[in-house]
């Protein structure tokens, strides 16, 4: 298994509260990603990072922010959680030039916003 740890694995929170999800990798990969998985939509890219302090928006970035202060950590923050952000969140890592198949996913965080 690729060394990717997501925390927490499960979280229940209330609408309007801030939430931070953490992704930690031990592979020293340069690229990190946050996806969300919803029924019928597959996985959709929220934000990604191509290096420390270098991040960019993905397909569904509204309501989310990210930070990457160290190579190994990529944080996803929901500033004010809404019920539409109930989803399973996956972190992924890759290295440029290693081929697109080399995209490794964490085990996911199940987030419920009540």
């Amino acid at each position, binding site marked *: 298994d690729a060394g*990717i740890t997501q925390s927490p694995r499960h979280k229940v929170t209330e609408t309007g509260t801030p939430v931070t999800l953490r992704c930690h990798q031990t592979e020293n990969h340069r*690229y990190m990603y946050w996806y969300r998985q919803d*029924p*019928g*939509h*597959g*996985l*959709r*890219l929220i934000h*990604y990072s191509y290096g420390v302090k270098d991040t960019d928006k993905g397909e569904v970035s509204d309501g989310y922010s990210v930070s990457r202060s160290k190579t190994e950590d990529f944080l996803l923050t929901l500033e004010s959680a809404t019920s539409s952000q109930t989803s399973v969140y*996956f972190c*992924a890592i*890759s290295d*440029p030039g290693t081929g*697109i*198949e*080399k*995209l*490794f*996913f*964490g*085990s*996911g965080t199940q987030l419920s916003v009540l």
Partner: protein
Amino acid sequence: DQQVKQNSPSLSVQEGRISILNCDYTNSMFDYFLWYKKYPAEGPTFLISISSIKDKNEDGRFTVFLNKSAKHLSLHIVPSQPGDSAVYFCAASWRDAGNMLTFGGGTRLMVKP
């Protein structure tokens, strides 16, 4: 609008038979296609891929076929095994997209013993 679509949310197959999972795409720029497999409570894992310069790629029991004119690809699993029961995601990318993938909605495959 979804650029990659998997129109069958679920598929049930008998053990030993062939499983065929389908995927359609709309973006002509896509030139690389992948299938991922996902078990419950785990992240997706890479299964097989195909470049647009090919129309078939085979890896053991898994074969992916690409029909560029129809913008359609399919994953064949022969013979199907109960351990193949999972959700399968089709994904697509293009040369200058780096490692950015666009995923389909997934198909849940159930292989019955």
